[in-house]
């Protein structure tokens, strides 16, 4: 046997969302996808092993860039025992492959400040030969908006008065080192590693830290925020390239100040380098957040309840700013859209049918399909084998699981998600009406592109890691492959 595998009789998702009937050749020993034609004519080899997939879909492995935990392990809980924590990472990495996920970005919700440097250092890229890849970390908080804190502990939220230095002080300078240096520490410069920070750009000092964060190779994501359209746009212009769980923990879409959600429809009129100057009411668009800020200050006087979600957005609709007319020539090409000065950010969607209505999912996808990224945002309770009922959480609190719904016991407060990513893909195809290939793209190529690792992950390009998932035509996982090896297979029923 020459260690080459040919997958045949299968559909391959392409980076444009289409599905083509084609073979895929991989090198089992090196764990990479091959350029089949070059292998044939230059290496003069063809695979000794042929895997007939019976018409199923052979997709790049799914990538979940926001997941809080699974199989009983919570990435946000560190009890001072490194070994125990690493064991938890391993458990998640090894079990999650049954959901088709081969890469994930462990997500840390807001912590007590002193815990960050330790936990982030533990969350360096990690995998075992039979597990999914933990790609690094996603720090959600603590530089987030109190009013949109969701389940984050209010007492740990902080501003960034010292701008980037504040970020370094919290996360640890070593964890925010330049990408190369950070990967070097990992010991494998070839490794794929990513870091994501979710923060609210309107929090003092955060906006000024965006550029340096991005320069270090860290993805800046807007989330848990009440940023007005102006502020959100400015953050994107400075390098923010992602929106954390769109629709959740942000102002709802208001047509006069569409805020963060409105970035999906960013108008060339406002984004152009020569954007028209406002003529009046400079502060009018901020009225929405102003009113909220006032009420917020009042609320801060009381002690906020940990379980309460968010404030109602606003009482008074703000005014749409008035812009000076521009008189440049209008273009005449049907179907073309005037160039924008910046790229619209990617956006995460939790497609469990609970966190976002199917109509909202379709609305976002229709506005900007290339930016859509499916996530689970799952809690540690995520485990497809877990029965419905009451389960222990922490601090004496308990969950009630009802299908994909998860409540705090005795309340109707959503306590996070327990949906698997493969189910999100199926849901997404149903909710939006898009093809399975296009839904797959939102869980593979789009997240990889957002993180800048699309040459190695989330793709079937030659040279990419042979992390694969086989799906039937209904989108159910049949088998999962990591680095060219089958690591999970559905039991023949």
């Amino acid at each position, binding site marked *: 046997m020459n260690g080459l595998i040919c997958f045949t009789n299968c559909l391959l998702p392409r980076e444009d969302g289409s599905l083509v009937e084609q073979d895929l050749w991989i090198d089992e020993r090196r764990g990479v996808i091959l*350029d089949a*034609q070059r292998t044939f004519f230059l290496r003069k080899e063809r695979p000794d092993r042929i895997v007939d997939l019976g018409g199923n879909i052979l997709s790049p492995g799914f990538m979940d860039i926001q997941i809080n935990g699974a199989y009983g392990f919570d990435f946000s809980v560190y009890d001072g025992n490194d070994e125990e924590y690493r064991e938890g990472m391993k458990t998640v990495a090894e079990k999650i492959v049954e959901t088709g996920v081969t890469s994930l970005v462990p997500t840390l919700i807001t912590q007590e400040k002193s815990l960050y440097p330790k936990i982030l250092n533990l969350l360096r890229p990690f995998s075992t030969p039979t597990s999914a890849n933990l790609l690094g970390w996603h720090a959600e908080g603590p530089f987030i908006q109190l009013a949109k804190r969701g389940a984050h502990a209010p007492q740990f939220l902080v501003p960034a008065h010292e701008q980037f230095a504040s970020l370094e002080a919290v996360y640890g300078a070593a964890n925010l080192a330049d990408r190369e240096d950070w990967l070097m520490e990992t010991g494998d410069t070839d490794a794929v590693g990513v870091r994501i920070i979710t923060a609210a750009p309107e929090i003092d000092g955060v906006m000024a830290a965006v550029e340096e964060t991005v320069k270090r190779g860290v993805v800046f994501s807007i989330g848990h925020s009440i940023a007005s359209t102006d502020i959100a746009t400015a953050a994107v212009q400075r390098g923010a390239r992602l929106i954390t769980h769109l629709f959740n923990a942000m102002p709802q879409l208001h047509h006069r100040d569409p805020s963060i959600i409105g970035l999906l429809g960013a108008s060339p009129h406002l984004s152009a380098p020569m954007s028209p100057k406002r003529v009046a009411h400079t502060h009018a668009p901020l009225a929405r957040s102003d009113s909220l800020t006032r009420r917020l200050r009042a609320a801060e006087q009381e002690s906020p309840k940990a379980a309460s979600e968010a404030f109602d957005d606003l009482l008074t609709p703000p005014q749409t700013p008035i812009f000076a007319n521009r008189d440049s020539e209008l273009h005449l090409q049907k179907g073309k859209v005037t160039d924008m000065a910046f790229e619209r950010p990617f956006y995460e969607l939790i497609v469990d049918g609970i966190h976002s209505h199917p109509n909202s999912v379709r609305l976002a996808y229709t506005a900007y399909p290339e930016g859509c990224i499916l996530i689970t945002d799952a809690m540690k309770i995520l485990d497809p084998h877990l029965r419905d009922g009451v389960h222990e959480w922490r601090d004496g609190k308990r969950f009630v699981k009802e299908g994909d719904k998860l409540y705090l016991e005795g309340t109707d407060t959503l306590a996070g998600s327990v949906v698997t990513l493969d189910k999100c893909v199926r849901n997404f195809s149903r909710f939006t009406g898009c093809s399975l290939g296009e839904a797959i793209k939102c869980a593979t190529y789009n997240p990889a592109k957002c993180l800048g690792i699309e040459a190695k992950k989330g793709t079937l390009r030659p040279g990419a890691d042979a992390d694969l998932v086989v799906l039937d035509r209904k989108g159910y996982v049949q088998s999962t492959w990591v680095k060219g090896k089958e690591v999970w297979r559905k039991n023949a029923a």
Partner: protein
Amino acid sequence: MRLIIRDDPTSVGEYIGNYIAKRINDFKPTPENPFVLGLPTGSSPIPTYKHLIKLVKEGSLSFKNVVTFNMDEYVGLPRDHSESYHTFMFREFFSHIDIPPSQVNILDGNAKDLIGECNAYEARIKEFGGIELFLGGIGEDGHIAFNEPGSSLASRTRIKTLAYDTILANARFFNNDIAAVPRMALTVGVATVLDSREVVVVVSGQRKALALSKAIEEGVNHLWTLSALQMHPWALIVVDEDATAELHVKTVKYFKSIERVQDEVEAMHDALRAKGIEEPVGSME
């Protein structure tokens, strides 16, 4: 010469596919004595390749002991280019069958010494004892391989400048940019094709109708290089109805009438082979 007429390109492909499969299986090739097959590119042979792939997947045919020689390749086009004949052959045929890569021969249009490459190709064909069966297609101008009108009928593998007709016809594969179409190709010669023990040519579509008529109803002429096939003792042309549009009714009727004895001819050929007599008996004229 035999001319077989089928309703449409798919039926043509099935006929030739079955024919080639039978020839390979009857040959009983071994690693020491492989079946040597010449192969073309282009749209006409695709149905044939599809059918051969089907036979391989069904298990009734194997290319394990088949050595192939392709007819031609563009000069200067990267091997990985979507329109190179390496890419075509891999995409349409080799990736789907069981042929070992070391038994595939395609001219290298990026060789430093192009003349040397051509001479080495001829020598390699000889090493294998010549080509057993050469499958070919034709261009609208009647060219076989890239032997454009005016090519010597005694030509061997060499560098060839493409005719303007061919460049125009191929521009559709290069975003209709005539400047992007390669101007030169390496190709086996007419004599290289005629040297093979058997030649099978696929012709389909009305656009090839005039070329077919010129090749079989008129004299041997270097302006329609396929006509050289008239000099070959064991040649088979398989066409679809559309490609017969320019033929005389008389010609079509004649070839249809002799098709029914095809099986007898085949049987006779086999019998002679079995007796160790290698003389081809294909000519019905």
